[in-house]
């Protein structure tokens, strides 16, 4: 008895100490990490030398990366700041990557093999202009020179150390620079551009010292429009302002001549104004009219002739010199399910160097960009490879008629995420390739035991690791008991949906949504939200779940909306519709119809409410719940928060019984001269709360959490303080936070943090909100917690009242009951800036919570909520300590082992999503940005299942040993008994 008690205690306490960390060999068991770069904007090949062939790319997400040309893997990658878009890029000296970024203000050189930054220069100029980068073959004082035109100034920069050798201003009024050209073998550059929209300007500059050699201009009364195409080093082609006349501008030896040719002279049935596709192919250029692409050759002195008219979707690649005076370029055309890659010589249209037809996945859409590269085959003929960028932002390498590799870089720009359950396992549904038999299972566990007893050889260890990582269990396509296997459905900016398996992160299906593709009715569609539409539970279990994709036709909030319904198992688009109203907000209602379709309320820009699905049953539910539907709107610009309820059917001329007018119930107007809304947060709709009561052990007291789904957290700052850190003093900045009930408009709590400013990141869960902001006085980041308790229930403390039933706990909770609330609050310093914050969510809400903090270093840190408890004090009493209250410290601890991303980075972190597993102890965490990261996370360890560490073999051995011991003692006791009898 005396022995068992301490053992029992020991067992309990050993399981209570939360250790969340990971052993190094556990990496990859439950987590996966994928790296992406985004839609490629520019690509430069580096294949000259022997060694690893690579391609350097810059993307629309401000990434510079080098990829392995054999497999498409990333060698190195740098993510520049959000306002540091890459304008130009090239390779210098065969070992440096030169990038021009930040609207031509920053020039950097990176070491090609390892990505180390070599030098960085800041370029300035008098005014904003187009930024152009030109690699010259000029050498000044043993320095290779790169010429940059940016911000109205021409710079010559040394490639070796980034030193600016000379610069020259072009302050001529409104000079719009179009091209910087260096004719081959010369030591001067041409700067050509338009001034005052009807004047062509040409400057000839000595590239050695920046001296102006010649300046000519010529006026053209028709004006210029759009971009230009370079057809030789001293000739370019432009269009007049109507887009109907082609202008061939030649500036040979400083003499400008403009020849104009109406397009109608070349093409009989010209359908309308044309645009030039910018290129720099010798003697050839292309224009596009509606969907028709026309290739035009330039012969001799401005003679134009049509080479070909193409009706299909065509993409033209860059020009590439393969030998002295020979230029080739690539064309990609769509032909049904195939794409056709053609490589042509610039001076000989009729001869194709290469013609390949490649089968292409229809879900990749159209080809957007082509980058051509050549190699010399063993028989000295030219071979070509092409890097193509597709409509869904994916990147593919084509060579010898096949796709060598492809990268799904659309996943780098995720707009919204939702999850879906997998199908239930049934006969015929199982996708598992093989099930382990008992012998293999035991063998595996014996191996593991060997591992724990340190008896395993290196081969055994490798076998164990392989076995753990390749467990077929985790990547099956059916539901599991623990709820670990799910589909993560993501909507990307390209309008493509992907379903990723939580087990190994593979793409189960992907679909380019037709409704989010460019069409006549919808010119620039963008995706907005992804909601679970139909989640079959009980009676509709055999049906597939559906997700609802909400989009709008263009960026502005009053654009018409687009809806699309997609099957989550197969990715088939069931239906889609272009709406006749805009979408300002989507509110999933807590009601479902008989087929488990969730009712959604779409609020348009005119504050009208539209119900979906449009079925009679849905309208019946709406009528029943008419008075229980409330919503709110936040107008950031004017600082007004308004609450609404349904009023009556719409008074529009079209009879639409699913459309309702809203009545404004309340409004809160914040003084615009002193407060500007910067953040609003509400609770997650599907959050489970286990208990309302919170026992305060210190005085045997019960506090009741104020749990309401209608609470809104609003943070405002002084209008001056809404910009970046460093531009404002603490005296003129403040942060005000509000807790507002969105049904009644009642402000439950208001608090001011003086000398603080945004950005504010906040998370709302149960009865507390945690927010992160910058304290200017201490010049550190701070995190605060507010907990809200319900006082009106506080008199239910008496147990007898509960027993007799004289309590008010079963009385319905209403926002109108005006209950007394008490708030408690505390603040702590936090080291890092934040990119995202979320909280773990578990199936029943019993497990204590941890905050998931996406730090500026793109890592995800798990921080126990107990560190953010307003009841923390410097010296907690013994009772409080037992309850788990941590002594107060001024800053929150950062424990490296509690980074759930361990030694990985989720570059460009944007959001963290937590989804409860069926197992109460575990939550699934998905962090996304440029990279994707997924892991299982147990906030207080897995107390409800055996860990992966558990050794079944050891258990078996113990049982065998126990049985043997029982047998031995039995024999011994028999013998002893016999001896006693004999005595």
């Amino acid at each position, binding site marked *: 008895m005396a022995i068992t008690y301490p053992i029992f205690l020991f067992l309990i306490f050993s399981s209570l100490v939360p250790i969340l960390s990971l052993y190094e060999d556990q990496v990859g068991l439950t987590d996966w990490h994928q790296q992406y770069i985004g839609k490629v904007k520019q690509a430069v090949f580096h294949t000259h030398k022997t060694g690893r062939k690579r391609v350097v790319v810059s993307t629309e997400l401000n990434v510079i990366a080098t990829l392995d040309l054999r497999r498409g893997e990333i060698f190195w990658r740098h993510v*520049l700041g959000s306002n540091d878009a890459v304008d130009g890029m090239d390779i210098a000296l065969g070992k440096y990557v030169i990038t021009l970024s930040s609207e031509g*203000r920053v020039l950097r050189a990176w*070491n090609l093999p390892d990505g180390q930054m070599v030098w960085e220069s800041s370029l300035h100029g008098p005014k904003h202009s187009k930024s152009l980068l030109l690699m010259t073959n000029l050498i000044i004082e043993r320095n290779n020179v790169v010429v940059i035109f940016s911000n109205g100034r021409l710079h010559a920069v040394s490639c070796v150390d980034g030193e600016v050798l000379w610069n020259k201003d072009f302050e001529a009024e409104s000079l719009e620079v179009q091209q910087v050209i260096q004719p081959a073998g010369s030591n001067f550059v041409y700067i050509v551009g338009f001034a005052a929209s009807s004047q062509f300007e040409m400057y000839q500059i000595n590239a050695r010292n920046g001296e102006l050699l010649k300046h000519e201009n010529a006026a053209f009364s028709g004006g210029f429009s759009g971009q230009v195409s370079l057809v030789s080093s001293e000739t370019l082609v432009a269009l007049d302002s109507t887009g109907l006349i082609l202008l061939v501008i030649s500036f040979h030896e400083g003499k400008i001549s403009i020849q104009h040719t109406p397009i109608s002279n070349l093409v009989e049935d010209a359908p309308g104004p044309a645009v030039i596709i910018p290129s720099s192919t010798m003697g050839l250029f292309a224009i596009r009219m509606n969907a028709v692409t026309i290739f035009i050759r330039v012969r001799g002195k401005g003679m134009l002739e049509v080479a070909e008219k193409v009706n299909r979707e065509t993409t033209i690649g860059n020009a590439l010199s393969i030998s002295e005076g020979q230029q080739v370029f690539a064309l990609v055309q769509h032909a049904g399910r195939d794409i056709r890659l053609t490589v042509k010589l610039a001076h000989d249209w009729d001869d194709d160097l290469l013609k390949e037809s490649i089968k292409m996945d229809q879900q990749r859409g159209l080809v957007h960009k082509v980058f051509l590269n050549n190699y010399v085959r063993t028989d000295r003929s030219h071979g070509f490879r092409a890097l193509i960028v597709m409509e869904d932002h994916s990147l593919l390498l084509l060579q010898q008629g096949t796709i060598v590799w492809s990268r799904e870089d659309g996943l780098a720009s995720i707009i919204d995420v939702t999850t879906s359950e997998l199908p239930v396992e049934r006969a015929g549904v199982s996708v598992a390739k093989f099930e382990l038999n008992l012998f293999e299972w035991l063998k595996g566990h014996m191996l593991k035991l060997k591992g724990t007893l340190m008896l395993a050889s290196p081969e055994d260890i490798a076998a164990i690791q392989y076995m753990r990582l390749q467990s077929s269990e985790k990547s099956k396509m059916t539901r599991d008991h623990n709820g670990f296997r799910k589909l993560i459905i993501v909507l990307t900016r390209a309008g493509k949906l992907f379903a990723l398996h939580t087990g190994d992160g593979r793409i189960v299906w992907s679909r380019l949504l037709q409704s989010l593709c460019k069409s006549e009715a919808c010119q620039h569609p963008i995706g907005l939200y992804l909601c679970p539409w139909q989640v079959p539970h009980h009676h509709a279990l055999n049906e597939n779940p559906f997700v609802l994709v909400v989009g709008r036709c263009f960026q502005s909030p009053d654009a018409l909306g687009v809806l699309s319904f997609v099957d989550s198992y197969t990715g088939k688009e069931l239906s889609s519709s272009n709406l006749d109203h805009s979408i300002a907000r989507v509110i999933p209602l807590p009601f479902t119809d008989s087929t488990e379709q969730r009712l959604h309320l779409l609020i348009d820009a005119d504050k009208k409410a539209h119900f979906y699905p449009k079925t009679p049953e849905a309208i019946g539910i709406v009528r029943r719940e008419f008075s229980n539907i409330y919503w709110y709107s936040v107008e950031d610009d004017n600082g007004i928060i308004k609450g609404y309820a349904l009023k009556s059917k719409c008074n529009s001329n079209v009879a639409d019984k699913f459309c309702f007018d809203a009545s404004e119930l309340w409004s809160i107007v914040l003084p615009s001269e002193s407060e500007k809304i910067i953040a609003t947060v509400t609770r997650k709709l599907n959050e489970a709360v286990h208990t309302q009561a919170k026992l305060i052990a210190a005085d045997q007291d019960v506090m009741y959490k104020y749990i309401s789904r209608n609470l809104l957290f609003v943070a405002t700052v002084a209008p001056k303080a809404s910009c970046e850190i460093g531009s404002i003093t603490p005296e003129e900045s403040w942060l005000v936070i509000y807790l507002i009930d969105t049904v009644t408009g009642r402000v439950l709590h208001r608090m001011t943090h003086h000398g603080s400013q945004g950005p504010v990141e906040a998370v709302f869960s149960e009865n507390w909100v945690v927010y992160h902001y910058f304290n200017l006085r201490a010049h550190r980041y701070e995190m605060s917690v507010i907990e809200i308790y319900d006082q009106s229930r506080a008199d239910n403390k008496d147990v007898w009242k509960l027993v007799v039933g004289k309590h008010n706990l079963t009385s319905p909770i209403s926002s109108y009951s005006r209950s007394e609330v008490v708030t408690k609050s505390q603040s702590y310093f936090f080291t890092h*800036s934040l990119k995202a914050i979320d909280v773990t969510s578990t199936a029943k809400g019993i497990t204590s919570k941890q905050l998931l903090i996406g730090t500026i270093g793109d890592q995800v840190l798990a921080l126990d909520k107990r560190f953010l408890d307003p009841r923390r004090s410097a010296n907690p009493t013994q009772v409080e300590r037992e309850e788990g209250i941590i002594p107060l410290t001024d800053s929150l601890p950062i424990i490296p082992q509690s980074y759930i991303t361990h030694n990985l980075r989720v570059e460009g972190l944007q959001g963290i999503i937590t989804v409860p597993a069926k197992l109460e102890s575990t939550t699934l965490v998905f962090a996304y940005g440029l990279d994707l990261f997924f892991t299982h996370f147990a906030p207080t360890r897995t107390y409800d299942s055996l860990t992966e560490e558990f050794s079944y073999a050891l258990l078996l051995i*113990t049982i065998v040993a126990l049985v043997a*011991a029982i047998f031995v003692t039995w024999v011994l006791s028999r013998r002893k008994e016999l001896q006693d009898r004999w005595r």
Partner: protein
Amino acid sequence: MAAIVRLLLFAFLFTAPLFSLGSRNGFTINGRVKIPQGFATKGFALPGRMSNVKVILNGGQNVTYVRHDGYFSFYNVPSGTHLIEVVVMGYFFSPVRVDVSARNPGKVHAALTENRRGLNELVLEPLREEQYYEVREPFSVMSLLKSPMGLMLGFMLVVAFLMPKFVENMDPEEMRGAHEEMRGQGAPSLSTSLPRGARN
């Protein structure tokens, strides 16, 4: 030679850490990230390999990388008090507050925000290394014994071999007394049934 280089570096640090550019009323912040050799090389960023050291101004307003010698620069920074954060996997850096003003160009006002230590030159060093993984303890007999199975075995052994010994060594009078007491409590427990079984 090395001394000259160091001298030059010092001169650079002291004369031009902050200098005005005039034209766009911006300043340049120059600094250096230094990962001392003393830190174990087991980390994720080896000393000497600085290709992935990111320096962030004001929570993402500007992002830059360091050169191979650890130097970095922010251009066109307006005057005011700024915050610089350094991100290197495997190391913990304190954010640094930097005051930039036109009144005293060429002087650094910098302080680590974590421990409020002032810096007279903008050389940023990690406060500590970060180990992201728990270190697996080597196998020991104790850990095996501490596991539930070990405890089970141990307890069984104690009960099977030590308990009879205790019981045997007990005074019969005392034993009877203990039995009486237990019966009085009315709690039939393991210890009451075991010795009897051992006796008969």
